[in-house]
Structures are given as C-alpha cells and as structure tokens.
C-alpha cells in the first residue's frame, strides 16, 4: 500500500505507557479490530494491536440486529461472542506473533474469580499487556459493570494484579457517575494504565415497528457523538492519577487525537472511525507526524497534558 506512514522526519512519535514504549500513540479499540484488517493495510504501522475482548468459554453473543447507526455515531450490542481461551492460545496468538507491533489482549468475565483466572491464562509469551474490560455496558443488564463503582473496580483490579505480571490496563466506563473515584481505585489496586473510556449506554427506536433497533434493546454508543464525554473523562482522570491514560471515544481526525493528547492522554484508541474508513489509523499516524514537523515539535511529551485551563470551581 502506498502512502503508509514513514517516520524519518526527525520527530519522535513514540508513546510510553508505563514500561512499554509504542512507536506511535495510535492503536485500535477493542472490538473494532481483527486480523481481517490486514486485508486493507499493513497492521505493523500501528503503535499496538488491541484484540476484541475474550472470555473464558465459548459464547454466541447477542441477538441481531447488533448495530444501528445514529446521527454521529452508532449503537452496538454485539456482546462478547467468544471462541474461548483455547482458540485464543492455539489460533490467534500464533497469528499475531507474525507482527512486530505489541499485542494487547482484552479480557472480561462475569465474576471476580473467572476474571482473575482468565488474566492468568492469557499471560502468555507474545502478549505485551492485558486490557481488562471492566466496563462493557452489555455485560450486566442495564449497563452495570465492575467499573461502575470504585469498590468493585478496586476488587477486580486487585484480583487481576495478583494473577499476572504483565502490564495491566483497566478500561473504564463513561456510564459511571464517579469516573475519578473509579480511576483512583484502579490505580490504587495496581493498574499500570487506564483506557478512558468505553461506550455509553444508549437506545434507538424504529418508530414504524415501535421496536428497539437493537435485538438487545439497549447498546453501547460510540463515534463522534461521545467524544466530548470521553475527552472530559480523560481530562478528569489524567489530572487525578499518575499512571498513563489512553484516550478512547469518538476519535476520527488528527485534531481529535490532539485534543485527547492535550487533555492528558498518553496514547489513543480508535474504534468506530475504522468502520467508516478502514485506513483511518494509518492516516492519523501520518497526519500527526506532519503536524509535529510543521509545529517543530520533537516529542509527544511537548503535547501530552499541555492544556492550560483555569481551576474550575465556579459554582453558578
């Protein structure tokens, strides 16, 4: 493929997430990426590869229709169809070993025990980090998940931490009313980074049929519509914690990436935008590099968290 990112322009795009260094801050969001994208571009241009959440056993996922579109985004209630841990170990891991980009494995479960066990099971050679999806709004009815509350977040991250030596990322939900408390709980329990955030629970109705557009009634909202919310949470969390924050939610342009970096994100994940344009991640890497060259910025450190904002405390 032509026009793929080249990095020989004297700028350093590398992103540090704890002990890991990625060659650039652009990576896919879990559930919006798979080996199939290799048909479209060379996946080794990416900073990292993040896989769809896996669960221990095999599972079918939700009824169809599983997606519908919105004015500036979409709803999904895919669920977590999973081929189980053996399939992951025997089929997927060898496939991804063929790439140079570090592999981030997203996991989830319905109980603390299952979650912790799975963290141990996926701590295999070839896995660079574990992303704990403690936030998927479809996991429990009405969007409840571990990441809705600081106490359950602390407990699940503590249990995961005990089972793996790999870098451990906690992926938060924007459906909580206490995002900062949840972020602090994940940090205190030993998370190495936060992914902020997952989808927002939403709904859409087919007025002709008077039926929900999704088989699962409600689903997770993603895409540009949620960007201001994910950005706000990224800013709040990055101010509150000392571990790196990876921004995620509605990012589709270079300026979106910059907004998250300026707000304090050390890297970003791209989800729904890939559905509109499968090459968007490769394009963002090039555009980010060009922007740095144009503005004589040598390292992302000059950008990350560079927002100048007054303390808000205006109570009017």
């Amino acid at each position: 493929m032509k026009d793929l990112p080249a990095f020989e322009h004297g700028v350093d795009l590398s992103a540090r997430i704890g002990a890991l260094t990625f060659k650039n801050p652009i990576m896919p969001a879990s559930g919006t990426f798979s080996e199939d994208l290799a048909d479209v571009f060379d996946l080794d241009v990416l900073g990292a590869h993040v896989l769809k959440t896996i669960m221990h056993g095999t599972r079918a996922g939700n009824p169809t229709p599983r997606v519908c579109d919105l004015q500036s985004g979409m709803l999904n209630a895919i669920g977590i169809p999973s081929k189980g841990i053996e399939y992951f170990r025997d089929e997927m891991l060898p496939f991804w070993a063929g790439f140079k980009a570090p592999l981030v494995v997203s996991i989830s479960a319905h109980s603390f025990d299952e979650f912790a066990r799975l963290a141990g099971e996926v701590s295999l050679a070839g896995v660079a980090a574990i992303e704990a999806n403690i936030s998927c709004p479809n996991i429990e009815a009405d969007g409840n998940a571990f990441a809705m509350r600081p106490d359950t977040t602390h407990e699940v991250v503590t249990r995961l931490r005990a089972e793996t030596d790999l870098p451990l990322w906690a992926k938060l939900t924007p459906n909580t009313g206490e995002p900062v408390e949840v972020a602090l709980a994940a940090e205190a329990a030993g998370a190495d980074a936060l992914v902020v955030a997952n989808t927002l629970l939403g709904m859409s109705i087919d007025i002709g049929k008077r039926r929900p557009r999704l088989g699962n009634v409600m689903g997770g909202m993603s895409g540009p519509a949620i960007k201001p919310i994910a950005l706000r949470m990224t800013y709040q969390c990055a101010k509150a914690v000392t571990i790196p924050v990876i921004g995620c939610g509605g990012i589709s342009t270079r300026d979106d990436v910059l907004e998250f970096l300026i707000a304090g994100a050390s890297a970003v994940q791209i989800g729904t935008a890939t559905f509109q344009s499968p090459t968007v991640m490769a394009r963002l890497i090039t555009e980010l590099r060009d922007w740095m060259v144009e503005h004589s910025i040598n390292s992302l450190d000059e950008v990350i968290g560079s927002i100048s904002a007054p303390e808000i405390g205006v109570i009017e």
Partner: protein
Amino acid sequence: MTHLPNVMTVPVSQGLRPRCSEATCRVVSNTLVNGEYRLLTLDAPEQILDCQPGQFFQLLCPEPQGEHPFLRRPMSIYGYDKVAGRLEFLYKVTGAGTRGLATLEAGDAFNVLGPLGQGFSMPDDWQHLMLVARGVGLATLAPLARMAQEKGRKMTAICSARRPELAMSVDLFKSFGAEVIVVHDQDGSSTPEALRTLIEDRIETSQVDAFYTCGSSRLLRLLQSLGASHGIPGEIAMEQQMACGLGMCQACVRSFRVGDQIIQRRVCREGPVFPISEAM
C-alpha cells in the same frame, strides 16, 4: 429471552481472504430504472475491480437533506469491468443511506470499500444453472449470469416480481444466454406452490445441476426443500445489518445448520454467499 445458540463461529481460513481497498470513484451516471430501482455507474480504479460475482462493496453514502447515514451501506456488485474501469450497483431507495445514494450526480466523487466477502462458486459439474430471485435480489445474480455465459453454462433464470413489467434485468439475463421465465403476483405464478410446480417440471424435463438465489426466505425454503428431495446443491447470497463489512465487528452474524450443529457465520466475511442447504 431472545438469544442465539451458545456455539462458536467457524474460523476463517487464510485462503478465503481477498484483498480490498477504500477508493474514490467518479459517478458516471445514476439513473432511475424500472420505476423502483436506480442504477449507479462508477468510474472505478483498477485496484478494486478484481471482483467475483456475489461479492459486495460498502458504500459511504452522501447525507441527504436532514438525514445522517453514519455507517457504510452494503451493496452487491451489479456489474464490473476491469478493462473499462466500470463498477455498477443496482439499488432500491428504502432509507437514509439509499436516499443519499439517489442524490449522486454525474461527476461527483464517491467513496467505496471493496470488493468484500466471498462470491458465488461454480464447480465444473454445475452445467445447468437455475437462478431464482425477486426484486433487487436479481441485481446480485446479474454478474453470476455473465460468468455462467463466459464458462459456457446453460442457464434458466426465474425472475419474480409484483407485476410483470417490474421484473428486473430480464433483457440482461437474456443477453447472457439465459432462458428467462417471469413469474408475478398478479396471475399467482409467483406463489411458492406455483413455483414448486414450475421448477419440478424443469428438473424433470432438463436436468438442473444447481440453484442460485438471493435474500428472500420464502424462496430459500422452497429451494432447500427441492434441493433436498432432488439432490440439487446451490448457493444463496444473504443479507444482514453490518457495521465494518470486513469481519471485525461481528455485527452481521447469521445462524447456519451444519450437520446437527447450529453455527454462526459473518455475512460480510464467510458470506454473503452460503450453501443453500446450510442457510436458515
């Protein structure tokens, strides 16, 4: 509680993967056909024209006034010509996305992603092909008919419609050497019962080797039953709501009966073409 059987998706073997790309095409024309359908002709770059009949593209539809088709829309390839650099879609205006398509004018730039999915197969021993479809489903079979002609196969195309004059692509099928039979709702010739009689008649008079069909579950059930009793294989192009069109999101799964198992397959990746015997 509505939910799908708790079983796994079939793995995709590497060999199945065709390469695809996002490309900007130029609109050559976008004309009303037959009162209900529109034919979109594009000037397309060579790299996206290694197509197979049955494959599809994901179209980034323009926004019609006050509407916002956010996701791409899947559309089967109606025609492709690598030498002429042409790509065609035949579509019915049903919602925001296709209303957006209808606004395209000659000269407009238009972004497409494809070709996607697995097309129809045509083993050497399938010599007499029977194509059965209705409405826009006939669009999907058009490039198949051209391929059949190139391979020198015998073809019977049963075109079903509400009224005889609404039957799609009759002349096109004829030009590919097919015998065309139009059935319709007005004289009752399109009912499953009438069709069963018609097709069994054909099977008896002239050996039918394979069925091809599209979409409609009424036709599917009819051809499954005929296929089972007469030992005739076949393929169907199926539809499902999609997001990525590439196999990444798992939005587009459908259930299939394989042996005594129910498995799920992605319409965009393992399909949209599946064995008639396994479809549900």
